[in-house]
């Protein structure tokens, strides 16, 4: 075969392959499986979420709905959709999968914080946070930010955490964006869920 012949063959193969692939994609694209209409005078209208549908009756085959009937159908569809909505987030519902992911990730960070809070490795003298603060008691994170008179400045929770790390624990302080600091804050705050915020309370 000539060199030109070989090039043609390769391009043809890519085209055919691509075409097959594209057709495959279009064949695998999700389709809203609408239930079949009951009789010739009914029509099933599907919503863009791929799940919700409404049956419209009293239509002649091929008849176009009048505007008010069409509006009633649209409103019914949206009504059904709103009823399913769990969290309004720009109008999009959170899926169960998303909820599971974020709860697992939050738990991971809080558990990491719990571990650090109970670890003698944060400091250098064997003391861990939970020794003075069992169950993160007496940390009162809901009172921050506040003027910490002993520091002579307004402190955030992380400033107090760092003070404790450097002083009673004699350890190196953590950067504000250190994952360990974030995890410890997450754990401490999680223990005060439901306690009203009271920043500035001393």
């Amino acid at each position, binding site marked *: 075969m000539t060199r030109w012949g070989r090039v043609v063959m390769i391009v043809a193969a890519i085209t055919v392959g691509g075409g097959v692939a594209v057709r495959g994609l279009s064949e695998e694209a999700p389709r809203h499986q609408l239930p079949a209409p009951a009789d010739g005078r009914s029509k099933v209208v599907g919503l863009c979420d791929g799940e919700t549908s409404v049956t419209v009756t009293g239509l002649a085959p091929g008849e176009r709905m009048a505007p008010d009937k069409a509006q009633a159908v649209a409103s019914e569809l949206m009504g059904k959709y709103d009823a399913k909505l769990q969290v309004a987030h720009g109008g999009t519902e959170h899926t169960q999968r998303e909820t599971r992911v974020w709860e697992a990730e939050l738990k991971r960070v809080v558990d990491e914080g719990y571990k650090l809070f*109970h670890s003698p490795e944060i400091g250098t*003298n*064997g*003391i861990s946070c*939970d*020794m*003075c*603060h*069992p*169950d993160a*008691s*007496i940390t*009162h994170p809901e009172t921050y930010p506040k003027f910490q008179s*002993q520091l002579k400045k307004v402190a955030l929770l992380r400033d107090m955490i760092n*003070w*404790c790390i450097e*002083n*009673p624990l004699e350890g190196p302080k953590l950067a504000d964006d250190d994952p360990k600091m974030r995890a410890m804050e997450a754990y401490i705050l999680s223990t005060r869920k439901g306690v009203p915020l009271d920043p500035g309370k001393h």
Partner: protein
Amino acid sequence: MPKYVLPKERERQEYQEARADLLQALPHLSRRDFLSMSAQAAAVATVAWKGFPPHSFQLINVAEAKETAPKFTIAYVSDTHILDKGLTHRFVRACQKAVQDVNALEPQPDFVLFGGDLAQLGKPEELSIGQQILKDLKAPVRMMVGEHDWYLDMGEKWREMFGEPTYSFEHKGVHFIVLNSVIVEDYWTEPKMTPMQRMLAMAQLDNPHGRPFTVGEAQRDWLKKDLAKVNKKTPVVVFSHSPLYKYYRPWNFWTDDAEQVQALLAPFATVTVIHAHTHQPLTNRFKNITFHGVLSTAWPWPYAPKGLPELTVQMVRADPFNQFDGCGWGTVTALQDGQVNKRYNLWDRNPMDVTFEQVSKGRKGMEQLAAQLKGNISWPSY
């Protein structure tokens, strides 16, 4: 055969005793009694001046003051939680500070109770450092064990260094009992925990998988036999690491068989429990038993979110920027009638006195104490 004492000699002895009693009672007289006595003394002096020499000092009835007069004092140092991280570690320094303070007492206490948790992780090095520091105490020492001392090796090193953890002794008419009240049901053998894993599990106060402290059946049997030999009118003082009542289970501020232990103590007229473990001033009373907590030298604990005994006047929360705040040592003064007055020697704060008189008046008595200390009887947990 008793030595015959001449009437004049006997009279002199009685006079000396009465004089000594009066001089001892004088500082403890209430204002009312003092004024009454002064008036009577003035009256007698007037009569005496007229030629009627008084030779007896029994002018007034000091019986009331006498019962609440102090008989003897002991001191305590407790919950030192020593770590083997060098001799400048804050826990070591705090233990030394307490020893120095006790040694500075004048007069010296009759003995010093060590309340338990000498070591933090039960290591021989930690126990040794603690023992060395306590050796500097001038007064004799009575040791009590805590869970931090015990659970690395189930008390092997402790017994070697300090003897059996459970014992009793008499002192000036009071029956003292020392218990090992940190017995916990075995939860480490089945999951094959190493000794250090077991120790760390016991060391974590907020361990969600922890099991409650008990005195246990064997020790309750021992206690029953020990108390059988004691007269019901003899004052009893029990030293215990766990509180011998139920305060807050999640932090093991708790003795699970408290009711059974209290039942064994119920027949006695005056019983006081001095307990450690909680690192905070605590006062409780149940029937015939008064309970007092002791301070830690190492760190203070917050009051638990619930279960606080209603008689307790809470100390104001510690300042974390002061490493000794909320910590300290203290004394227990046994009174003539067998009850006790408790003193908390908080470092960098005024001492806190909880007298039996206040405790016997219930919450009203404690509210007066709170007003004196500018403390708060119902401070919210924070």
